């Protein structure tokens, strides 16, 4: 059970600490250089996040035994190290991006280490599917990272790290509500540290680069979303929406935003990014309320894993649709009080209609195939017979063609 007071304490303490650490590490009598502010931000985000994890009692055990331990012990420190190396003067940009690419590629594998996804025993996942998912996640992560860094150079502004922070915060809440409380909670201090460090950096330098903050934010986002997708019940579609949401910052590069004031561009970026985040949060909250009030489906549990797990790559909604004959049967048995229209019954209606439509389409296809391949009409009739109204229409069409 989550403790909102504890979460609030952790977020506030992390935010304050992040700002103090940036100011302490980056302050000089003269104006601080962009590189110095960048390094100060990286260190501040790392230290403040660690403080937040300590308050939330998320500090890991050694050796790491679960995904959260690996995220905190291996992935986040690796991101800090990579960003510190990238911020060093003699390191050329291609080398820095090579390191970032390696981190993006390795993060997923490290997080899933030792899990049933990699030994092929995870329900509904083959090892090949897992590797494909990890490869896609790495490409998306690197693409998002690159595009946001490019945007930060092309049209700099504190709104970019703030947009990543708000995505990390929303992702954290989504993962918490999707069944993995501590995994999601790991995103909260990160979001607080990111935003406070980015804002504090603006006090030190008029045009900070935010490269380190963007890097840490993206890696944090990878970690939180992979935890939610693979170890919680966050569906693939929502995971992708969360991950791609910061890219909406690019929306302010449209001609209509040209020559607008920086504050308007920044606010627009945050508002654009907030739209998919709000939609995702509404959807996960709706699912959470439904799952919390609904008893476990005895039939489904006896038959095997939950449908959302059986087809993880498709997400919960499509998994429901794919199991439509079973779902409609189960849903038709669900007791609905008179006059009450539940979402479940709506789904039942939808799946029922879909089933009828599918049957009709199948019958039409079969009758066409039969006409083409068989000269015996009775055989074709037998094949289309079990279907419902649309299949009768198909039969009519078949007779007319005869």
């Amino acid at each position, binding site marked *: 059970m989550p403790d909102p007071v504890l979460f609030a304490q952790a977020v506030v303490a992390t935010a304050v600490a992040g700002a103090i650490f940036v100011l302490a590490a980056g302050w000089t009598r003269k104006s601080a250089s962009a590189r110095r502010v960048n390094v100060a931000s990286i260190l501040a985000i790392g230290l403040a996040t660690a403080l937040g994890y300590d308050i939330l009692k998320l500090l890991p055990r050694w050796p790491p035994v679960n995904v959260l331990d690996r995220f905190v012990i291996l992935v986040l420190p690796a991101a800090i190290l990579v960003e510190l190396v990238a911020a060093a003067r003699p390191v050329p940009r291609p080398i820095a991006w090579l390191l970032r690419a390696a981190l993006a590629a390795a993060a997923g594998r490290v997080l899933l280490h030792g*899990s*049933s996804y990699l030994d092929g*025993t995870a329900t509904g996942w083959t090892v090949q599917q897992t590797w494909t998912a990890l490869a896609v996640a790495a490409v998306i992560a690197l693409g998002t990272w690159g595009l946001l860094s490019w945007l930060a150079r092309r049209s700099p502004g504190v709104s970019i790290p703030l947009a990543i922070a708000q995505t990390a915060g929303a992702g954290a809440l989504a993962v918490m509500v999707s*069944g*993995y*409380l501590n*995994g999601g909670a790991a995103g909260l201090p990160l979001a607080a540290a990111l935003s406070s460090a980015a804002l504090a950096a603006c006090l030190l330098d008029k045009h900070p680069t935010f490269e380190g903050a963007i890097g840490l934010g993206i890696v944090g986002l990878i970690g939180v979303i992979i935890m939610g997708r693979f170890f919680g019940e966050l569906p693939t579609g929502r995971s992708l929406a969360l991950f791609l949401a910061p890219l909406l910052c690019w929306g302010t590069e449209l001609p209509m935003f040209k020559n607008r004031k920086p504050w308007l561009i920044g606010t627009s970026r945050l508002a654009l990014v907030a739209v998919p985040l709000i939609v995702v949060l509404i959807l996960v909250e709706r699912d959470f309320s439904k799952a*919390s009030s*609904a008893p476990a489906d005895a039939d489904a549990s006896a038959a095997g894993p939950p449908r959302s*797990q059986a087809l993880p790559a498709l997400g919960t909604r499509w998994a429901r649709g794919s199991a439509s004959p079973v779902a409609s049967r189960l849903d038709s048995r669900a007791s609905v009080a008179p006059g009450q229209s539940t979402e479940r019954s709506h789904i039942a209606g939808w799946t029922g209609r879909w089933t009828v439509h599918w049957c009709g389409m199948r019958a039409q296809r079969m009758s066409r195939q039969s006409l083409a391949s068989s000269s015996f009409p009775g055989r074709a009739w037998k094949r289309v017979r079990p279907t419902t109204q649309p299949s009768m229409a198909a039969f009519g069409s078949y007779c007319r063609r005869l």
Partner: protein
Amino acid sequence: MRRIPAVLVVTWGALLAVAASAAPAAAADNYAIDTAHSSVSFKAEHMGISWIHGRFNSYSGNFSIDKADPGKSSFEMTIKTDSVDTGNKGRDTHLVSPDYFDAKQFSTITFKSTSVKAVAHGYEVKGDFTMHGQTKPITFTLLGGKEVEFPKGMKRTGFSTDLKIKRSDYGMVDKMPGALGDEVPVSISFEGVRK
């Protein structure tokens, strides 16, 4: 009366001794757990005010009973962690997450006996209990052992036990202490069908 040579006596004696040692001892009966007539259930205290009951729907196991030499008996069981069922889908989703069972990382809970001792009405079983990736020795008393034949030709026997598992011993620690009881009473009852 002719006397039997001593050499012959020794030779035959040795041969008989070897034969006796090689003869099969009363073999143990091997059983496979019949999941249709078994249950693994537990209850966890919520905030110290009520108990939430749950069960595992998927498990398997084998055991062998050697009545002549109970020390040679053995028990083993494997429970699939993602089959936890507390009657609430939202809670079950949370229970299989890394906050509790971490079913994707530790997909099974296993028990394998290391020693078995006959006691009144059953057996005292010691063994290694592995949960959440950590193995600890536990001891419990299995009561039962009555044999029946149902249906005809299918020999069955069954046992039951109640034990307490301390979650924190296995690294299953709550971030909010007191929300869920640390000590979880577990009730296991199983029936085996002779192989």
